[in-house]
């Protein structure tokens, strides 16, 4: 197995709170890895550190040969190789509200890669079709259902053909049928040779679709392995707790800020 994504001794604090105390994690090409833990365990912080959206204090992150060092985030221009390698699908999808679905997907190829708009449009159509949302190409994000928005967000990330795909709580707004469909999509991406790191607390989903699960608790990975082993015969108390209380572990779905000019109190 080749380590596409390597996280070593990752330590991170937010204010005075220590979030991560030495996380070790590895994702290989063709692998779907589920990063699991209860709400507040730091799953999102791991993803944000890998995507260079969050500085960390010590440790190292290597993606496809690009090394992220601790301390202040480098300039965007120095992050180019990382941006080409890592795609991130946010929990709230974070589609660009003023652009149509097809424009959302084509934006980065045109402006980050310098493609001709026609070429970007063709690619976007192909990706949307492969994810089953081609019919919504001219809709605006606010007209989409949760599942459609997520597939558009995945298409937007795939337009840059990243070798590592990060997803934050992808099942939080999906019904069971859509979860299964998402699972097959993830498997298909892995078959293309990508490495996937999925932050989730959804035990059923991880058990069905991940190659490996890593349990995050108290800021470290306390146990990892094949899902049938870890999730059926957990060796760590934190894992048992996660399996016991799926309801308590449910993360509050991050509210998308209403797109309104009246939202002055938040401005």
């Amino acid at each position, binding site marked *: 197995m080749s380590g596409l994504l390597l996280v070593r001794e990752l330590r991170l604090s937010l204010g005075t709170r220590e979030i991560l105390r030495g996380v070790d994690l590895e994702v290989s090409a063709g692998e779907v890895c589920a990063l699991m833990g209860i709400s507040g365990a730091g799953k999102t912080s791991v993803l944000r550190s890998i995507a260079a959206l969050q500085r960390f204090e010590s440790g190292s992150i290597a993606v496809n040969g690009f090394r992220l060092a601790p301390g202040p985030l480098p300039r965007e221009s120095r992050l180019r190789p990382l941006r080409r390698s890592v795609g991130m699908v946010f929990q709230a999808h974070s589609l660009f509200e003023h652009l149509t679905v097809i424009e959302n997907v084509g934006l*980065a190829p045109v402006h980050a890669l310098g493609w001709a708009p026609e070429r970007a449009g063709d690619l976007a159509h192909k990706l949307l079709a492969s994810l089953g949302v081609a019919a919504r190409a001219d809709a605006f994000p606010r007209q989409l259902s949760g599942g459609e928005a997520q597939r558009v967000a995945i298409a937007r990330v795939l337009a840059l053909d990243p070798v590592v795909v990060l997803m934050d709580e992808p099942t939080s707004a999906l019904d069971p049928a859509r979860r299964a469909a998402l699972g097959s999509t993830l498997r298909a991406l892995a078959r293309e040779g990508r490495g996937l790191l999925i932050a989730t607390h959804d035990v059923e989903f991880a058990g069905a679709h991940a190659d490996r699960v890593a349990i995050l608790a108290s800021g470290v990975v306390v146990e990892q392995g094949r899902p049938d082993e870890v999730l059926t015969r957990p060796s760590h108390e934190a894992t048992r707790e996660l399996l016991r209380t799926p309801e308590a572990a449910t993360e509050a779905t991050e509210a998308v800020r209403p797109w309104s000019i009246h*939202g002055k109190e938040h401005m």
Partner: protein
Amino acid sequence: MLRWGGDAEGGAPFVEADPADPAQVRGFDVEIAALIARSLGREPQFVQVGWSCIEPSVERGDFDIGLSGVEDSPARRAEHSVTIPYYEFREVLAVRPPDRPRFRALADLGGRRVATLGGTMAYQMLLEEGRRTGLVPVSYDDDVHPYADLASGRVDAVLLDDIIAERSLRRTGGFVIQPQPVATGHYVGVLSRANPALRDSVNAALRAAMRNGSLERIFRHWGVWNESQLELFARQEVSAGALSSPSPVGRAPPLSEAKGDRGEVYLPALLRAAGITVLLSCLSMAIAVGLGLLVAAGRIYGPALMRAGLATYVEVTRGTPVLLQLFVIYYGLSGLVRLPAFLAAVLGLGLNYAAYESEIYRAALEAIPRSQLEAARTLGLSERQVLRLVRAPQALRLALAPMTNDFVALLKDSSLVSVITVVELTKQTAIYATNVGSWALPGLLCAIVYLALSLPLSHLARRLERRWSGA
């Protein structure tokens, strides 16, 4: 060219818009200005200026001489070049008819409310009397409302120039003028203290006009001639023999007592003034938008020192009255740069509104969810591309409705620039209201023009709000 400043809102018989041709002014100050200009071999050109701003305006060079019932006073003589007095007026007391026997002089008015025009000799006298007897001075910005409030009982007496009192008596009545004057004063022309030479020429022209009777003819024409003027003229080293015999105060046939029956003649001038208002508002808004964008961008993306500086600008601008800012730009800075009035007005309003616009843009930029900006960054867009492609276009939509509302507010705030001598819609209306002797028709016309300008914009703002509120 002799540029002379006066306030057409002061009205007849001093300076008023000509009812026959509202673009022209008439009055005894107008004719005196023409007389002075003639004797200097120049063409008179009228400059409209708020009465209380005549002195700062003449010092900053807006015009050569102020002639608009300006009172002689030691303070004025110390600060400016002042001509010889050309008219002697009396401060007279107006009271309601039943009060005639008991309020004969200021001394009878202890504890009573007595009205006058602010910034005048009469007001100074009331202040002094108030300290002695507990009389309550009430200051007005115009010389019409004191008499209206006297008739309605809000004040118990009015102390003002006899010319003004008699004009009000003819127009509205409802009061009597006590025969015994409280004091006498003089009207003078006021020039920049840097210009004593022109003052001396004007004095020579005035003395000549006293001698040859032309000044008397002007005062007789306007119905304000009386024998006090003879004595005044004599005191100005003029041979008494050259003066004609005294005559009683005449009636005033040319005064515009026809009230508002010919409103349509004012319409073209009102529309012209509306054009000034629109032009002023558009130019100011252009500055406000351009500068506001820069300030907002600087406050979000700039270094700490720039952010602090811009925040100070925004807070100072929003925390002080725009009226004060206009005064500072026009009069306060006149030692450094002498901006033309219109330019000062555009700059003053533009700089003021830029502070408000920048807050709209800043709020709009900060309203774009951070996760969208992060998503754009993880897609490999540069910081500048994130702003240009994701943040700014969405912020613009959020900002459009409040911007339109601000423009409507600016349209109305633009009326404030009349304090720095720009005659726009409201000022023009005030001038005509004085002329017609009523606010009813001019006020209605003015309101219609403002509404015609602002209603479509308000409607647009509401539509934008609905369209992009994400409902």
